[in-house]
């Protein structure tokens, strides 16, 4: 009789642990999803700000056609990559970041443009959006790391394999392009 109770107790304990681990994994997966949507919000915000910026710069530096066209093209490509995988999206957004960086470097040569309040406001807005993207990405990657760890580590890996939890992809940044020296010819 006593043995029966002990077995029953162990079964109950295992069931409770299973439920706790399962819920923990669901929580982790939801946090990853939520973090990804935060990156999404900020990327869209950047896409929305760019036409305004291009128009403002055009008014002062109309003959920087190439730089402006690069930004517009990169934006179009980034928007079309909206539904692609995290890795592909990261790539497209990096190209846009690069093009924007060049645009701001070019803007340095136009004192009138730099004094324009609209331009300054846009600059703060884009810079901050850029920061928000990188902080959202940081939080997303941290969440993915924790979630993936739980999927791989014992004992949660048992629950993960039975409950069909799959590892998530990191939102990579191409360090090569991000750290490169700006190649702006004057």
């Amino acid at each position, binding site marked *: 009789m006593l043995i029966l109770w002990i077995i029953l107790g162990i079964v109950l304990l295992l069931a409770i642990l299973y439920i706790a681990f399962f819920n923990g994994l669901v929580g982790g997966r939801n946090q990853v999803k939520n973090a990804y949507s935060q990156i999404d919000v900020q990327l869209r915000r950047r896409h929305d700000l760019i036409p305004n910026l291009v128009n403002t710069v055009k008014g002062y530096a109309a003959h920087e056609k190439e730089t402006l066209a690069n930004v517009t093209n990169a934006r179009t490509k980034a928007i079309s990559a909206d539904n692609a995988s995290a890795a592909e999206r990261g790539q497209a957004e990096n190209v846009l970041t690069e093009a924007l960086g060049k645009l701001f470097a070019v803007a340095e040569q136009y004192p009138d443009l730099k004094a324009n309040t609209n331009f300054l406001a846009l600059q703060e807005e884009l*810079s*901050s959006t850029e920061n928000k993207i990188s902080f959202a990405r940081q939080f997303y990657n941290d969440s993915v790391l924790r979630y993936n760890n739980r999927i791989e580590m014992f004992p949660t890996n048992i629950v993960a394999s039975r409950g069909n939890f799959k590892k998530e992809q990191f939102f990579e940044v191409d360090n090569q392009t991000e750290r490169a020296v700006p190649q702006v010819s004057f």
Partner: protein
Amino acid sequence: MWQQIRSNKIKSAVLTISMLVILSFIGYFIGYAVDSEGGGWIGLVISLIIWFLMAIIAFFKGGQMALSITKAKKIKKEDHPRFWNIVEEMAIAAGLSKIPDVYIIDDPAPNAFATGRDEKTAAIAATTGLLTLLNRDELQGVVAHEIAHIKNRDILFMSMVSVMLGAIVLIAWYGSRMLFFSGSGRSSSNNSGNLALLIIGLVFMILAPIIAQLIYFAVSRKREYLADATGALYTRYPDGLASALEKIGNSNIQIKAANDALAPMYIASPYRKKGHKIDLESLTSTHPPIAERVRILRRMGVSGLVSYEGYEKIYETDSKQRTRADSIIMGNAAMGMTAVSIREAYTEDQPIGLGNLKRTPDARKIAYNSSGGNYIVKKCDDCGAVLKVSTTYQGKNANCPYCGSNINID
């Protein structure tokens, strides 16, 4: 992160219980002194009710009270886009469920605090002095520190504990006077055992508020260190907060609304003695010395990696308080978290975070002992930090503020 918050919770519970015990004792003694038969328990219940009522008020109104005492004004994004954006950035980095409300206090003294009971009711306030004094990196460091307080649940906990401290002080103050002027006469006619008990009770009543306050301050200091470390993890740039703290520490403007209850909430102690910078760590300070906080953050910046483990290690090695064995980042659970590399400084008045622009780490150049006038530039051989040394500086050697090594100046 959650593990460290959990071990925080355990320590907080121990603290709360010990203060609750002190509170109960005081209530019991007062009740006992008034009526030695059964009065003790009534006194205990009354003291707990007083605390409970105060706690309820603090829970629902504490945040608003702090904001109204300091005359903080809620702002919209258009009022100060940069400050607003930075709060939003750090809320994203911490993964808060809601962006905190943003407040500005019209005061030239640089300081900031966070308040509210949870993520949803949280608010961040900064003085106008802070907003004009700091650059973007530094302001981001300060906001990250405040967001860390919100994320670590410090703000609710500290306000609950400060209310308990308030209840202890209040009850002990009224209780001891009550006993001196009325209760003592009636009880002294009893046997000598009762008298001894009363004397012990009185002594305890005098000491209790002091003990409670010391516990409260000790916890406040630990939470400041922890918020520094968490903040550095959010920004990935410890030098930002370090140079912000240097600027705040060098300012000797006294904040208008400095008050004992609010002191632990600020990023740095709001009290300024005339001509003195805040630097002494003592039992009665709510904050660790700024120099110590800066030293840890700077060294973390030089090491290029940010982690709780790294923060802990730097705190322990060649610290002035080497004798203190207790951990500052609470609990071993925070250990073993992977270290992450830091980013570079933003360039002032330039687009920030745009990948291809050149960034200069100018936040690492600080004036060393400068009292205005000319200076010479010295490079630290060990860590490569650039120091500006005032020509009026008398000594031949100086300690590098980042790595602590000795630099020859001639």
